[in-house]
């Protein structure tokens, strides 16, 4: 096995192995656990960085061995996979540091970090999967690895949330499986190929292809929280904040959205999708999800629930960009993978900081918290403004490209959807900001745990501020080489090459 073959496996192993070791550790061995976590994180980031560099240089990384009759287990690095992989690796770094700080002194940390590592392994697997079956493998592993994190607290509420989560995601996985199996029976091939591999079948099997598309999108949509498959996401917010961050920004919903991008571009190819007439309905679903999620968010009083519905809405930007068959919109959609990730992880970190430090869970308890925790709220403000789409935050660029892309292909209604979403986002985020910064703080906070110094523990604050700064940075420096937008440009060039 050459270096180029083993690199994808090493990327997976860099979180899998520490995770498995952590399972076996004693609960008290905090130092070793932290060290393992950090070593894994850094190693993974380095390996992914090497691969990103290599892909940019034209290297090919692929490992392949037979798994099922006619189907291989394939891990492959292409521009799109590295894009998602890098996002996951970077955000995992932030989330791990955050989680170490967040879970200080709480029980069952081994279990938590073990599954945490598995979860990231699965995410990287989803990113690197070279065909649909490999994708499915990691997609389901992701479901399984996140379930223990969702129910980590072990309360009745969280167990219920876990059940709902499983009901949705496993059903989604089953639909996905059915779709993939059918596709394999029909096409005999499941390898992700730029511009898809089904163009030869459109003539004779269009009805079957539409049915398969529906199955696949429904399967992926359950994780991507497309309305009406979004019900699990708001419930799953009972999980600890780092988990929410992981669910909403890095792993789960992203895996669904990423899968939709893969299916549309690398399985069907945008031309086939257009020929089959399924792009329009998909875009419509995405649009409905965007508006509905925002509307629901408007009426939530719990901070994390509000953020959860915001995720429902925001993740569909990615779907929308994918469904609008044009390079510019696709850039917007795919770049939103990163943009939404950075902004939403910021917001969830902030929500976690508030809950952990002051015991704040509800919007109305935020009164004047800006004075008590200025850094956290500054980060929150940046993230929220980004969600609204205020430049130069990252979110603006997603919207800009989505709207331009919609115009490009003669679908100006996209602008209306984006505007509606921006207005609604503003409507549910600005009151939060106003409450936090401009209302008088109460005498006492709901449950204050005074840190030694500073507004909260540094392990919590540092990742929060860093991801907020990155959300600003990727927007400000959108035209730098290796910025998400530029990288997506490369991907889209391949997908839309003549």
């Amino acid at each position: 096995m050459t270096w180029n073959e083993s690199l994808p496996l090493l990327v997976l192993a860099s979180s899998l192995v520490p995770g498995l070791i952590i399972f076996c550790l004693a609960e008290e061995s905090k130092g070793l656990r932290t060290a393992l976590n950090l070593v894994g994180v850094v190693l993974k980031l380095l390996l992914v960085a090497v691969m990103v560099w290599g892909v940019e240089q034209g290297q090919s990384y692929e490992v392949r061995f037979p798994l099922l009759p006619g189907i291989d287990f394939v891990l492959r690095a292409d521009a799109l996979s590295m894009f998602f992989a890098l996002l996951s690796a970077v955000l995992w770094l932030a989330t791990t540091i955050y989680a170490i700080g967040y879970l200080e002194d709480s029980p069952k940390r081994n279990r938590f970090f073990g599954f945490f590592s598995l979860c990231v392994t699965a995410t990287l697997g989803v990113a690197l999967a070279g065909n649909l079956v490999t994708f499915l493998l990691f997609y389901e592993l992701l479901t399984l690895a996140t379930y223990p994190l969702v129910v980590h607290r072990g309360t009745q509420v969280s167990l219920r949330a876990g059940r709902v989560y499983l009901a949705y995601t496993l059903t989604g996985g089953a639909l996905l499986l059915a779709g993939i199996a059918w596709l394999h029976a029909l096409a005999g091939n499941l390898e992700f190929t730029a511009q898809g591999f089904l163009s030869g079948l459109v003539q004779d099997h269009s009805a079957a292809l539409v049915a398969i598309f529906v199955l696949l999108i429904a399967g992926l949509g359950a994780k991507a929280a497309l309305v009406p498959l979004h019900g699990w996401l708001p419930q799953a917010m009972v999980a600890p904040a780092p988990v929410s961050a992981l669910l909403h920004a890095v792993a789960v919903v992203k895996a669904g959205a990423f899968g939709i991008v893969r299916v549309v571009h690398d399985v069907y190819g945008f031309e086939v999708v257009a020929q089959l007439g399924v792009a329009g309905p998909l875009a419509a679903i995405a649009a409905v999800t965007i508006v509905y999620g925002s509307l629901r968010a408007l009426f939530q009083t719990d901070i994390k629930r509000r953020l959860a519905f915001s995720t429902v809405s925001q993740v569909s930007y990615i779907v929308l960009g994918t469904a609008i068959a044009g390079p510019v919109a696709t850039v917007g959609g795919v770049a939103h993978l990163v943009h939404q990730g950075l902004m939403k992880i910021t917001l969830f970190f902030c929500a976690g900081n508030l809950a952990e430090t002051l015991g704040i869970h509800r919007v109305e308890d935020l009164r004047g918290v800006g004075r008590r925790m200025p850094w956290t709220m500054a980060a929150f403000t940046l993230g929220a403004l980004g969600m609204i789409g205020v430049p130069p935050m990252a979110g603006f660029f997603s919207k800009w490209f989505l709207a331009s892309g919609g115009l490009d292909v003669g679908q100006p209604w996209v602008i209306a959807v984006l505007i509606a979403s921006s207005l609604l986002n503003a409507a549910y985020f600005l009151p939060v900001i106003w409450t936090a910064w401009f209302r008088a703080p109460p005498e006492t906070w709901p449950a204050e745990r005074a840190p030694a110094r500073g507004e909260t523990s540094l392990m919590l604050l540092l990742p929060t501020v860093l991801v907020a700064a990155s959300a600003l940075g990727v927007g400000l420096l959108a035209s730098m080489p290796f910025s998400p937008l530029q990288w997506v440009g490369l991907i889209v060039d391949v997908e839309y090459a003549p």
Partner: protein
Amino acid sequence: MTGASLDAWLLLLIPSAPLAVACALMLWPTRRALTLLAPWAALPALACALGLAPPLEIDLPWLLLGTQLGLDHTARIFLFFTAFLWLAAGVFATGYLQEGDGRARFFVFFLFAMAGNLGLIIAGDMLSFYASFAMMSFASYGLILHNRTAEAGRAGRIYIVMVVAGEVLLFAALILAAAAADSLLFADVPPALAEAPTRDVVLALAVAGFGIKLGVLGLHVWLPLAHPVAPTPASAVLSGAMIKAGLLGWLRLLPLGEGPALEGWGLLLMAVGLLAVFYAAFVGIAQRNPKTVLAYSSVSQMGLVTTAIGLGLAVPTRWPEISAIVLFLALHHALAKGALFLGVGMAASRFAAGRYRWLVAAGLVLPALALAGAPFTSGGLVKALLKPEAMALPAPWGAPLAALVSWTLVGTVLLMARFLYLAWPSGASAGAPSARASSGYSLAVPWATLIAALLLSAFTSGLAGAEAVWTWSAVLSGVATLALAAACTALAGWLLAKVDWHRIPLPASGDLVVPVERGLASLLRTSARALHDLRYRLSGGEAAAKSYLTTLRRLLAPAVSIEGGWAPACTMFLALLLLLAAISAT
């Protein structure tokens, strides 16, 4: 970046100086030196405006989607008065606000708004303009809410709603404009837009989007609410500098002087503008807060600006002349309104109580006169120059427009009279919150400088034909009109003094917003209810699934109960056996 001169690099200082100070202030909010330094962050901008020669250009391809900063004639004028006003207001603020008033917080917002305002002026591409515009708008939210009163809360709420609405309208406008021009550079947009099929949509969106900032009639409602509640120096920049950002947006985006004449749009804007002039005057004189009166005056003045822009759209051939007038109008209004707002602060300070009372009074009257268009003032100059341009309109419209432009004076005089009446330094206002002991020079010097600059501007405008305006007849007619208007006002005031004001249903501050607020609230309630219902219908799936399961359980109960029985089992066994044998026999 090649080809950019060293001068062009200096442009980078303009937004980055206030940003840097703002960041420093966030990190070390207790440093007194930083707060004192804050106003001077506008100095590089002022220096650039005065010292650099347009045109300058610098490309920053790595920033946003490729940023271009530049300094052209328009930008230079905007940069001058904006930087000047920010500097003056900033210095004023160092004296006006005390340590305990959250001065550091105020300056953080102040500096961000400043950076946005200055940045958008030198922006050569849409995105950096839009980003700066947003930064300015959102940062001034903090200025408006600074006092944390209930009134400020309401004003802030309405302001932010309007800001967000403006942002999304602009987003759509810019997207469409960029698509039409296939470029993000302002230089490419107006010519392309003049020919584009989406022209009217973009125009509508831009007029409305920037109109919110500019306070175009109908979209002005936030302005009389927000300007008065902010601390006085903030009001000055809001009313003097920031609303001009909307004007700059129009100048950058609209196809002014390009392509065919847009008479429909022109007439619409002129109509709306002139209506604003009179409507704002009418509502403004009913107000009781001098700052509110000034805000309405801004609406009124911006009505004039709107009219001029409408004229430019309708008569593209005259645009070079009109544009010069509009720029000067902007400058004049910025300085005048800045001086008046700071004057309100001065009138409430200890100066007004002491021996400088008459000086303060004079300082209020002079800019008021300028605004009213008295001879030898910048305001008079503008109106005098605008009238002949109005005559350039096609036949039935030219003369009435010119006449209406003259009559705007009446409205302004009424407003200024009302303002002076309300703000007159009585000497008894020393107990007002803003009148605490403060270092007098930091208040007086910027104010005086502003007034001086205003007065001076009338003679250094450099406008074509400016020197020929003040003929004897023009001065006489100007003074006469002014006197007549003043007399009318005095008469009206005397008459009205006998009236019980409380019995007259005066339009409240913010006028139109009141019914809209009510409507929105009920809309929100209705939509909440509708959504609630919808959600139940959607989550009905869950309930249905549950009841379905229960039914299933009940239905299957008999099967469960016979599961362990021998007789059913053996019967089924026999049945299966026979069935299988029968099938294999076929």
